[in-house]
């Protein structure tokens, strides 16, 4: 017969696994999780999420993200480990562009993607400003959608990115 004995709570309960956990992210699951433009005052000027996030959480996330970026100095690197993903950010005047990516996405490639995006905006708005982005939200969205779809980089050629917008503008003029 199996004996069972009533015991105290043992205070040294040896864990069955003594291991140091390192996050193993599934290789190659690289993608962009969100794309944000936030100014120094913390006002969001553009937000695009490629995974569903509740609106309340969005506001919180955006606030935290910008806080993180603002607290950093020029000597610090442009990549921030944040929760279970990474932020890649660049600052243009008072505007921060922050992209949330998976562990495995190529940081440098995303870092330059941001610049490419800004150059496209510059080309379209001829020297883009924060106001351009505010007043032309729909157009900025079109540009971004041409460049990033479903979290993947889809087009990097400036002329082709702008092609649908030029069609749109031509139609509006006529």
């Amino acid at each position, binding site marked *: 017969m199996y004996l069972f004995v009533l015991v*105290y709570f043992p205070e040294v309960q040896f864990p069955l696994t003594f291991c140091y956990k390192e996050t193993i992210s599934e290789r190659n699951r690289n993608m962009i999780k969100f794309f944000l433009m936030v100014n120094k005052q913390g006002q969001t000027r553009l937000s695009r999420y490629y995974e569903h996030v509740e609106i309340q959480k969005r506001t919180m996330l955006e606030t935290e993200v910008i806080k993180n970026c603002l607290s950093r100095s020029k000597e610090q690197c442009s990549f921030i480990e944040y929760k279970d993903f990474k932020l890649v950010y660049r600052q243009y005047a008072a505007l921060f562009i922050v992209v949330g990516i998976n562990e495995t996405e190529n940081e440098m490639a995303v870092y330059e993607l941001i610049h490419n995006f800004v150059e496209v905006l510059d080309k379209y708005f001829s020297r883009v400003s924060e106001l351009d982005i505010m007043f032309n*939200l729909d157009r900025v969205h079109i540009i971004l959608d041409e460049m990033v779809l479903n979290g993947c980089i889809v087009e990097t050629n400036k002329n082709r990115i702008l092609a649908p917008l030029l069609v749109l503008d031509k139609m509006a003029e006529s």
Partner: protein
Amino acid sequence: MPAVSKGDGMRGLAVFISDIRNCKSKEAEIKRINKELANIRSKFKGDKALDGYSKKKYVCKLLFIFLLGHDIDFGHMEAVNLLSSNKYTEKQIGYLFISVLVNSNSELIRLINNAIKNDLASRNPTFMCLALHCIANVGSREMAEAFASEVPRVLVAGDTMDSVKQSAALCLLRLYKTSPDLVPMGEWTSRVVHLLNDQHMGVVTAAVSLITCLCKKNPDDFKTCVSLAVSRLSRIVSSASTDLQDYTYYFVPAPWLSVKLLRLLQCYPPPEDAAVKGRLVECLETILNKAQEPPKSKKVQHSNAKNAILFEAISLIIHYDSEPNLLVRACNQLGQFLQHRETNLRYLALESMCTLASSEFSHEAVKTHIETVINALKTERDVSVRQRAADLLYAMCDRTNAKQIVSEMLSYLETADYSIREEIVLKVAILAEKYAVDYSWYVDTILNLIRIAGDYVSEEVWYRVIQIVINRDDVQGYAAKTVFEALQAPACHENMVKVGGYILGEFGNLIAGDPRSSPLVQFNLLHSKFHLCSVATRALLLSAYIKFINLFPETKATIQDVLRSDSQIRNADVELQQRAVEYLKLSSIASTDVLATVLEEMPPFPERESSILAKLKKKKGPGAGSELDEGKKESGAELNGGVEPTASTAVSPEGWGLMPGSGGGDRTPGFYPSRVGATGNLLVDVFSDSASAAPGLAPATEDNFLRFVCKNNGVLFENQLLQIGVKSEFRQNLGRMYLFYGNKTSVQFQSFTPTVTYPGELQSHILLNIQTKAVDPLVEGGAQVQQVLNIECLSDFTLTPLLNIKFRYGGALQNITLKLPITLNKFFQATEMLSQDFFQRWKQLSQPQQEAQKIFKANHPMDSEVTKAKLLGFGCALLDKVDPNPENYVGAGIIQTKSLQVGCLLRLEPNAQAQMYRLTLRTSREPVSRHLCGLLAEQF
């Protein structure tokens, strides 16, 4: 003002945005927004049909408001209407609104699907793109059902425009991710692979993403993509292609596409075809060469784009882990970056080198950079870079440099950011153990850890040092001496006290010869920390004291005085009080022989092929030559998943000082017979029960449950695998139940999860509240684990909470559900009363619904002693001389719940001749009467 608005500026929208900008305060902004929302709502609700332009304008405003962080709960219908507009601008806004605001389970999906269907059929490429973008962004199951067969067709059709192909590729990717079952592989798959050859770079860019995803699930179907990707990459890298169009970015040809192609190749092993492989190696060499060439542009964009490709190429080289030449070149390149003035590059180089360190070909090369990395740990201004440096040191650590690395990490720990301290502590602990050449170094390191960062030293770490000290007799004396010295510090961390208490309690005798650490000095030192410690630590110290009595009889009187003091023996904490009482008793009753047996030194912990311990043991033996390789391999394994998160590193859950054999089985359940003695009767009771508990499942379970209505302890369940014992106590409306899960087999149970579930009315937790903690998911063969339930009865309840136990035994999932023996009568408080009072109350409860009665046949022999015991066990008081018939039983009690008390009277009339009983219950609440009557009637 709206001059900044491009194209067909919507004046109203521009005015609104300007207004928002001019708002001086958040309140003003919210006010303005609310006003606008009301306006839009009334416009949408109004009788006048809105034209497309107005709808577009309002939907745009809603989008802007949403961006500002306000939830939008209307306007979806208007957006859907815009989808069917013929004007591109209106359609585009509609799609934008939907892809930003509609989540995949919206009810509107069907309407949206209709619009998409029309646009896909329109043959107008801009419309098709919009529709495909929308699917790619929303991607619900319903969409997958509607379009999963259509999209692949669009993708591979010969006449599809390039831009549409791009959208279709990513759209298909989304559908495949959300509903892979709906996307049938087929003839189109081979044609998708050939998109890598498409002359249009944009199409290739989109297709690579799709193929990367598809090939992971179906590697064989997409195997041909390797050679295609290599040739594409080769053409880009060598700038041989003339089809680069505008895809050159600051003199770097197609950087993003190159990165993606290199990533795709990481889904496969190195190409088998020698020609393909040769071409690829050539590519990788070219990429490495280019890093050394003078830049074609001074712009940072140029070098960034180049380096993006370089890092991805290095990832691929590491992934292949088969080209020593490339691995070493990669390492040298990264070594250059370690000293680069750009922080971004230093960060990425550290990160990338971390994976290089695990390759046997480049491990040595990585090690040559140790000074630079240590310097980075000390001087980098950015915590994330320092963190990477710490990771790299951990990864490059082996026997040759362990002491240096551990000491650097320890000194870094003193100033380390709080956010990464715990991680550093774990890393140091692992390295110290893994590469321990002598155990005294290991002990020193761990004690240093506790001293420097005690708060961040998790239980595992200090458990571990104790395990090792107990198992290694060559280090015990040193450990005792060291903890004794460490405890001299005026303020030392509680974890230090724990380790100190444990080690001195076991091995204090090894240093007792020195008058500076005589038994009494040791005891006084420990006891000086006692009052500052938490209950758990104090409990451990009490155990250390009783061990002292055995080790050093001369301390007995002093320790007994301490145990006897009011602050111990009358401590408000039950655990401490009980220990004090029992230890005191043990030390005064037991003979020295018994004491010596009971308080014997802890036997070594079982070393179950622990990779860490096995490593240490091997250290002692010869063959140091092979050691190094071994070490490297292991550090590689660790990078991929820590120190084997399996049972291999497991050490059985054993407690010191307390606990007779929680390990069960082979371990002597030493130390603590007083506890066993105290519960001796209970055990007998338990065993008599378990003998009758049939191993069969369901029917026996119900029987067993009924047995617990009138008693609190025993075996609740038993089969061939598992035994569950219960011990419980109830007071007023509170109860505590101890469940003991015994693994009867010699095999480990995995994923062992007992959960309490609540049927019906109990779900709301307003009647009954049970709190419990999860138990360890692994139960070793022969071991027993314990779970405590704290129970609070809030109101009267009739249903029974259930206990569900799931675990894996061998490969099979076991699932057992039992009724928990928590019934309303457990909260009975017996009430004595005189005959007169009884009858008066009996009459007060004379309404028909207050009474419940049952007449039933006896199931057990009608023994009056047993009946009495059962009634008492049921919880009420038995009242003598109340009923005129002495054969009858009369009882009274009060059910205590948090919200109300229910008075309860009962009468049981046996009829020996007929072998029948009549049971009558009267309480102030009808359901209680019925429920208790039903429960009790089952008992006789």
